[in-house]
């Protein structure tokens, strides 16, 4: 009896020690993230529900004015400017993600068919440009697309743009910049999917006289779907919130939601309006993550869609 009396106290002492260990290791980092990220974002969200005071800083009373402004209602009645910006962000995200898939799919497949010793080098070649700073890469495109450059003159000769306009600034330049920026993020997960592709399924389909298209659709595509979904998350979510590329390549008519938000904070224009835009971006982010998780689980590849 004495023995069993000792056991619980020893165990509970052990549990206390374990709990203290957990506290010591995890608390510094958790506290850091709570103070320097959770609190600031909570503050930002609360700003969206305040009134725009003098100097653009938020003031009480609480109101929904900033969301009205985001929807386009201003001092001079309704104007579609903000709504266009929102639609443009959605459109640019969709188009660039689609184009990235179209380019990345054959590239990832091609790399997986090459000799094993070349594959790491090929992947490195795809990834290395994204190691350089985003501002520099975008600056490179500014140089390539400006009026008077060979690419612009070619487009002019083909009648795609009017004289001396140049390909930048334009919405086209923004799409191009987005595709360029996010291509590696799609190639990597797709390559991972192609690398462990079960070729027996493809051979079975061919043996059963499936057309190449049907063989692809039934034997290849489903196997690469988890990689594709992971790639879409990695591309679409940051593309929707992009700031640098539309700011440099888009000009006034190429603005996206990220620029709308940032402009409200630079020079203290209207913090609550900017915060409302940020909330919209957060909602889009979490809907995107949630949807991908759901689809990923339904495909049974829930673990492979790494978020």
């Amino acid at each position, binding site marked *: 009896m004495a023995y069993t009396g000792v056991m619980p106290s020893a165990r509970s002492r052990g549990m206390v020690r374990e709990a203290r260990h957990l506290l010591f290791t995890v608390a*510094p980092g958790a506290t850091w993230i709570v103070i320097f990220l959770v609190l600031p974002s909570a503050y930002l969200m609360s700003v969206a529900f305040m009134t725009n005071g003098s100097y653009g800083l938020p003031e009480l009373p609480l109101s929904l004015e900033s969301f009205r402004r985001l929807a386009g209602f201003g001092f001079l009645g309704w104007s579609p400017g903000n709504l266009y910006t929102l639609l443009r962000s959605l459109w640019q995200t969709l188009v660039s993600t689609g184009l990235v898939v179209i380019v990345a799919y054959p590239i990832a497949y091609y790399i997986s068919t090459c000799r094993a010793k070349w594959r790491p080098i090929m992947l490195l070649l795809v990834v290395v440009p994204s190691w350089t700073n985003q501002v520099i890469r975008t*600056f490179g495109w500014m140089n390539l697309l400006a009026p008077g450059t060979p690419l612009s003159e070619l487009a002019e000769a083909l009648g795609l743009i009017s004289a001396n306009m140049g390909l930048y600034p334009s919405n086209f330049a923004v799409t191009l910049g987005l595709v360029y920026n996010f291509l590696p993020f799609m190639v990597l997960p797709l390559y991972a999917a192609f690398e462990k592709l079960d070729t027996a399924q493809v051979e079975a389909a061919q043996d059963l006289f499936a057309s190449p298209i049907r063989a692809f659709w039934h034997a290849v595509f489903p196997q690469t779907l988890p990689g594709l979904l992971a790639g879409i998350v990695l591309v679409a979510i940051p593309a929707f919130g992009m700031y640098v590329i539309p700011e440099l390549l888009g000009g006034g008519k190429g603005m996206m939601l*990220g620029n709308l938000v940032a402009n409200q904070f630079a020079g203290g224009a209207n913090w609550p309006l900017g915060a409302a835009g940020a909330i919209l971006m957060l909602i889009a982010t979490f809907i995107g993550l949630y949807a991908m998780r759901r689809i990923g689980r339904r495909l049974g590849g829930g673990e492979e869609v790494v978020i």
Partner: protein
Amino acid sequence: MRKRTLKRGLTGFWWFTLAFLYLPLAVVVLFSFNASNSAATFTGISLRWYGRLMGNEEILSAFANSMILAITSSVIALGIGCLIGYGMYRHRHRKLGWLIVLIYLPIVLPDIVFGISEMAFFVQIHRLTGLLQPGLVTMIIAHVTFQIPFVALIVYSRFVGLDPTLFEAAKDLYASPTKRVVHFMLPTIKPALISAFFLSFTLSVDDFVISFFTAGPESATLPIYIWGAIKKGVSPEINAIATLMIGAVAIAAIISLVFSRRRQA
């Protein structure tokens, strides 16, 4: 027959895509050696823009800021992240869902929301208390915040990959926990610590948006300086400084290639 045309088409597409990926960088490098200050026509080779860099105080101080920021934030993040990584491993049988959410938050939050949250927060703290004036300190805080998750996840996965009985053996071998940390834990996770440090360093140097919104007037980093120069109107000096940064990346790429080759061998 059909297979061969497919393969040939794919090879062509591969080279086309590579050209697409490297063209903007090549243009920057090429025009950094341009003799005239035109951004559209190449007139001859000269090193004058590089000469100008050396005398530009602003660029030198931006470079120093970038280095101070990257090294300080990586060191802090390494300490904090390493602790979390170990805690997550040791207590992986508990329900730590809230911790996982917390750790993934800096990764999934859009850069612009991240940067603006911090900026709004720092501005208000500064107004109320006079502390945390925008500058290198606020930038270091922000960078550590986005580096912690990467360090924690790298260290955690290194621990998961270890044989659990190693921990028992270490317990038998070394009596004191301090000795266990110094002689067993740190040496075993050394590769993870090194790669976590380099990843943190790279993320810091590469970041523009979060730095831009948390920076003060005196704490511009290289990307912020370049951004300002582009906004003011293109100067050929940007090509020169950008080329140097591309060169640094190229060296890093070659080093990583050599390392992966050695691991294969």
